[in-house]
């Protein structure tokens, strides 16, 4: 063995591996895009939950001899405690109060502090009261004036259920996903790799039945994995808790734990369908792994958030894929699941699964899968061209305004995302104004310019800068004037942002430390994103995706990417909806200008309202919201009509 031989082989292997775009995608996109996205969004949601618990004013009931109660009141005077008269443990169990403090005479007086250990608000109330009562009375007397005996009132079975509910739902969802992962790849991409696809497709069986059979097999395996893990984890958690608690016996809520099994089949069906659908896109086992691994992590994020965040199962969360089943499993273990919400979660999960199954059936016999589309310019040649301009190898078939491919559009987005996380965010945290200007004009604008240069196009051609019809511009203005209102009300209904988040946004527009003035704010927060973000998103990204998808799917995907790019769990929905609207405008008008106009007017409206302190729709009564929403929807519809009309006229329809 010589070093030359080793390096020769290593060089060949590296060359081959690095020419595999999928390996590069996993190597680069995963650590730089998916992990930051999942962790940041999860952290934001969890932080909001912690903030909510901390901002909750705990209701503490006091009882005992009047003199001691008075002293107790004095000690507990705090803005985060609301003190009330006597209450019973039954009131505590029914969540009418968060803690019950009963003081008895003694030296020092003893406070029996009852709390519900299965409620976060109650545990927070216990901590606050204990901290205040156990603090020394003053600098001279070091001993605390009260002795506190905290007593959990939840029945043992409920405590066990609470402990299980913290671990099991997440474990079940994650394990079901894991159980579906490899079988889904094996029966789709594995079949293709083993060259049995044609044999299967030549059989006289309907494709939907074929895929339903495959999904059923994967769902069965995933269910088995889920059930085995659920059973094993239940016993492990309870045994572990018993060891920690010593001789104290925990009652195991067997019936409730068993009820949690109800979520396994629909969850397995959903993930099996999703993974089979995605596996159906892949041409090889390796490609399927590349496609499914990020999906696995993205699916885990809502389950993780729901599992750790202690969110309520409501009419909205019940319909969020991954979240609904996690919360339902928890509520079933805690014995507080309502029939209506249980049915809503099971039905919606099954419905999403069925939709994914239908997609899988459509994709599985896609003719694309019989052929390869690997042809393309090598990375090295493209980089040379980027650096040296026309002197290097051409990046496109020839100069002109050819759009990028969908893969190039996604790669461009990934680069922008990496810059956002590792450069733009730190810059904006350092100083918002200069950070935003650098991120937008140099970052996003520069990226668009580099892309155009790499393709031998002018920026105007690359982003489709064309003079729009006056009607389209008028429509864009109307859309900009109304979209923020309609989208804001929708988002408030579906996923209301915590007050702190809204307040932070207001402070960014009107800094309390010193107003930057209307014109400067409009330039920074309306014109800058309208030009730079639109240039990238409604320019090459939208055009690239359009080469692969229908206009509707292109608008939705670009909108989603735009929403995710804002990297804020609470703003993903409204910004994604805005992104879909702006993408629709750009596609319909075949020019980027109306989308820029609509984006500018949308942001400008919000800025003006925030400066006038007139942007709080929360404070409005229900009927006023309904009226405003209707008015906004009407103006929006007129705007959309005008943009479409202008396009139809241009096409001579």
């Amino acid at each position: 063995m010589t070093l030359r031989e080793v390096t020769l082989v290593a060089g060949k292997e590296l060359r081959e591996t690095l020419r595999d775009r999928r390996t590069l995608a996993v190597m680069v996109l995963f650590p730089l895009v998916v992990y930051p996205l999942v962790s940041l969004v999860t952290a934001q949601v969890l932080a909001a939950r912690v903030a909510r618990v901390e901002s909750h004013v705990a209701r503490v009931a006091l009882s005992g001899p009047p003199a001691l109660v008075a002293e107790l009141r004095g000690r507990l005077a705090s803005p985060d405690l609301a003190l009330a008269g006597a209450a019973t443990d039954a009131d505590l169990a029914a969540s009418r109060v968060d803690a019950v403090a009963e003081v008895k005479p003694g030296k020092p007086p003893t406070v029996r502090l009852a709390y519900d250990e299965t409620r976060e608000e109650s545990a927070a109330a216990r901590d606050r009261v204990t901290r205040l009562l156990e603090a020394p009375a003053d600098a001279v007397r070091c001993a605390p004036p009260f002795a506190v005996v905290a007593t959990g009132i939840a029945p043992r079975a409920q405590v066990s259920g609470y402990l299980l509910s913290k671990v099991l739902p997440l474990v079940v969802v994650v394990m079901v996903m894991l159980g579906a992962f490899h079988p889904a790849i094996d029966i789709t991409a594995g079949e293709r790799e083993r060259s049995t696809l044609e044999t299967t497709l030549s059989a006289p069986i309907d494709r939907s039945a074929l895929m339903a059979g495959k999904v059923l097999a994967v769902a069965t395996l995933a269910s088995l994995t889920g059930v085995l893990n659920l059973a094993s984890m239940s016993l492990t958690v309870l045994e572990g808790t018993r060891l920690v608690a010593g001789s104290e016996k925990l009652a195991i809520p067997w019936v409730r734990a068993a009820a949690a099994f109800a979520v396994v089949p629909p969850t397995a069906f959903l993930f099996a369908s999703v993974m089979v659908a995605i596996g159906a896109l892949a041409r090889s086992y390796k490609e399927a792994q590349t496609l499914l691994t990020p999906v696995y992590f993205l699916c885990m994020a809502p389950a993780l958030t729901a599992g750790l965040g202690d969110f309520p199962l409501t009419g909205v969360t019940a319909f969020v894929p991954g979240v609904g089943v996690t919360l339902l499993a928890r509520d079933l273990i805690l014995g507080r699941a309502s029939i209506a919400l249980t049915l809503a979660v099971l039905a919606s999960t099954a419905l999403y699964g069925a939709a994914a199954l239908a997609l899988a059936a459509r994709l599985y016999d896609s003719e694309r899968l019989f052929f390869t589309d690997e042809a393309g310019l090598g990375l090295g040649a493209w980089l040379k061209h980027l650096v040296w301009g026309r002197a290097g190898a051409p990046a496109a078939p020839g100069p002109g305004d050819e759009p990028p491919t969908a893969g190039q559009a996604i790669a461009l987005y990934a680069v922008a995302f990496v810059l956002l996380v590792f450069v733009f965010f730190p810059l904006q945290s350092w100083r918002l104004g200069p950070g935003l200007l650098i991120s937008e004009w140099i970052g996003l604008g520069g990226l668009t310019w580099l892309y155009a240069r790499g393709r031998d196009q002018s920026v105007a051609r690359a982003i489709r800068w064309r003079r729009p019809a006056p009607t389209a511009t008028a429509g864009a203005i109307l859309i900009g004037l109304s979209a923020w209102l309609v989208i804001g009300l929708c988002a408030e209904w579906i996923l209301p942002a915590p007050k702190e988040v809204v307040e932070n946004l207001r402070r960014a527009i009107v800094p309390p430390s010193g107003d930057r003035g209307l014109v400067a704010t409009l330039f920074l927060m309306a014109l800058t994103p309208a030009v730079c973000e639109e240039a990238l998103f409604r320019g090459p990204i939208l055009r690239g995706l359009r080469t692969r998808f229908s206009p509707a799917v292109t608008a939705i995907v670009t909108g989603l990417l735009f929403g995710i790019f804002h990297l804020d769990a609470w703003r993903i929905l409204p910004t994604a909806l805005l992104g879909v609207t702006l993408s629709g405008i750009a596609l319909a008008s075949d020019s980027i200008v109306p989308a820029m106009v609509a984006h500018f007017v949308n942001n400008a409206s919000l800025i003006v309202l925030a400066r006038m302190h007139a942007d709080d729709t929360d404070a409005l009564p229900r009927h006023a919201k309904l009226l405003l929403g209707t008015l906004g929807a009407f103006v929006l519809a007129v705007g959309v009509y005008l943009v479409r009309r202008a396009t139809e006229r241009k096409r001579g329809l």
Partner: protein
Amino acid sequence: MSEPAVVVDSLVKRFAAKTAVAGLSFSVGTGEIYGLLGPNGAGKTTTLRVLAGILTPTSGRALVAGIDVAERPLDVRRRLGFLTNTTGLYARLTGRELLDYFARLYGLPRADAEVRVEALATALDLRPFLGRRCEALSTGERQRLSIARAMLHDPAVMILDEPTAGLDVLASRFLRAFVRAERDRGKAVVFSTHYLAEAELLCDRVGLLHQGRLLAEGAPAGLRAAAGDAPSLEEAFLRLVAAADGAADRAAEVAE
């Protein structure tokens, strides 16, 4: 005169910018072996996949047993046996499990399926390995099992995509004898290969495919004669391709 078992009429199949089949027409009668011959990339496999209802024609039409493959692909698949150019067996099933599975997919009653499996096991000498997993079989054994899989429902039309690729001389001869026997039972066979000598031995008629088009069609002897008494089908094919390419070049020059 009876209706042809297979009709391909002005068939075009495009994949994005690539045209794999460009206006192909031919027909195959019952009790006839028709060979689709041509080099790799000529459009043979694409044509057979269209006939099997796996691919949809871009334009033109294809009929199997009088049924349009684009309109009723399931009915077509019930009437044909398709042997892919890979053996395409499920590696982790045994031979018997595989045949049982396909017999049920074809809707054969259990008793009929057992009789049919036994008959094919005898005809194709499958018994020694029917209980073994497909992944443990030799290439020749896999190919025989594949044929049994495609013939389970006794289809009127057999579509065989390069069935002798990778087989040794004995296995190839065995397969050719089986195909002839099926032809003699009245089946229509569409057979693709790029081994022209083999086609000469087996086919009643052949169609020479080049760049998705039919260069010539007829009995092997007739094609050799048409190519200036070429000594073999291979030589005839080369002469016809050269003539076609020359004509295309001349047409391009005139257009310029």
